[in-house]
């Protein structure tokens, strides 16, 4: 016997899902190929660049390093789940306003890491922002506009924005 498909159930952006997949298939690939949630990107595929970042049970994770079997029963939030009721998350609004996105590859991961940061530190220091985003690489903006976006979002009090995956702890 090798990697025969298993039925794996978890919640993505508030929706219950059941996928048939080999247990070692990466969560990233299940999100993109099986669930057609292509917001999460693959950059390095080895947990360095953060472009595949999602939140799983309230923790920021690299979805390229999660075998989908380990997501069984989990609550997952992807960038597609950041806006609620047709309204952008304050961090998304801040990225638009401050020019936080340029080519866009890193943006979904930056948004997820930034949202995670703001859920823990609603008013982060620059050191906390730098550490919170250290696992997300951007080769366009030089990071400054991304940091400014996080600061702008914090000024709007992101913590009050409900999010379904951010409060497991």
């Amino acid at each position, binding site marked *: 016997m090798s990697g*025969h498909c298993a039925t794996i159930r978890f919640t993505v952006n508030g929706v219950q899902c059941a996928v048939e997949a080999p247990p070692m298939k990466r969560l990233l690939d299940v999100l993109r190929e099986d669930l057609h949630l292509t917001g999460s990107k693959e950059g390095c595929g080895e947990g360095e660049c953060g472009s595949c970042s999602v939140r799983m049970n309230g923790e920021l994770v*690299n979805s390229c390093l999660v075998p989908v079997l380990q997501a069984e029963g989990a609550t997952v939030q992807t960038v597609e789940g950041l806006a609620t009721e047709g309204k952008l998350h304050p961090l998304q609004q801040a990225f638009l306003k401050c020019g936080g996105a340029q080519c866009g590859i890193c943006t979904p991961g930056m948004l997820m890491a930034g949202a995670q940061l703001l859920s823990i530190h609603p008013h982060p220091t620059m050191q906390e922002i730098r550490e919170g985003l250290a696992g997300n690489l951007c080769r366009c903006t030089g990071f400054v506009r991304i940091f400014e976006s996080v600061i702008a979002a914090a000024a709007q009090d992101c913590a009050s924005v409900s999010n379904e995956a951010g409060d497991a702890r």
Partner: protein
Amino acid sequence: MRGNAEAHELVAPGNLAWVLELLAAAPGEWTPIAGGTELMVAHAAGRLAPKKLVSLWGVPELRFIHASAESISIGAGATFRDLRASAGIAAELPMLAKAASWIGSIANQSRATLGGNLVNGSPAADSSPALLVYDAEIEMVSARGSRRVPYAAFHTGYKRNALAPDELLFAVHLPLRFMRSRQYLRKVGTRRAMAISKVALAGVALIEHGVIGEIRIAAASLAAFPARLNQVEAALLGRRIDASTVAAARAALHAEVRPIDDIRSTAEYRKRVAANLLEEFLNELGVEAPRR
């Protein structure tokens, strides 16, 4: 993604007894995988050799941090985020808290486990130097029972360790007797975030009546596995800290360590920087009045 998910089996028994039963039934056939920060990298690159994997993620018996007056015990499945969130570790074992903050990014820390870091056995492992100088003990468990070894005896060669094929690393036990000790931990990497160390050095010492009464020094990336520097310790024990002691310690370090040239650094650079770190530690010891 160059790996093939269908070429690997992965099972998740969900509790410790069932994992141990699986390992006992076919010793050496199953490779444990916890947070995947090492094995999934190999998987994506198409170089994950093990075909049968057993998931330790979510096994509740492995994820704990227990503190008592004498010791702190950390389950192998505790993540580095768990370690950083522990008030007991921050207060009693500050170097371990600092080392946990070195592990990759926030996303890596929320998945990477202490047990995984040690079993993977990288010579550059971030948590190892602190655990070595804190005199950590490793508890291993199998269907046959459990046993303990000093962490200093856990690594037996490059990426080799004391685990039998049917055993798991269960917990790391740390005695709490270093509150009076002077402590030093520094990592040198290419940059502050997300860098694997070129060299890292940890030390604890007690200065009594102006001489070194007790000292432990350990390093990463200076040999095939993280290890105590016994000859350096011997060169320092009972000595007063002055220029000749520092010179003797540097010479002992040069004689003892066995670094290599690799993609991250050179043996020569590692030796020289390690000696500089040692000297920095000794200079701090030479300054009067411990901070606590």
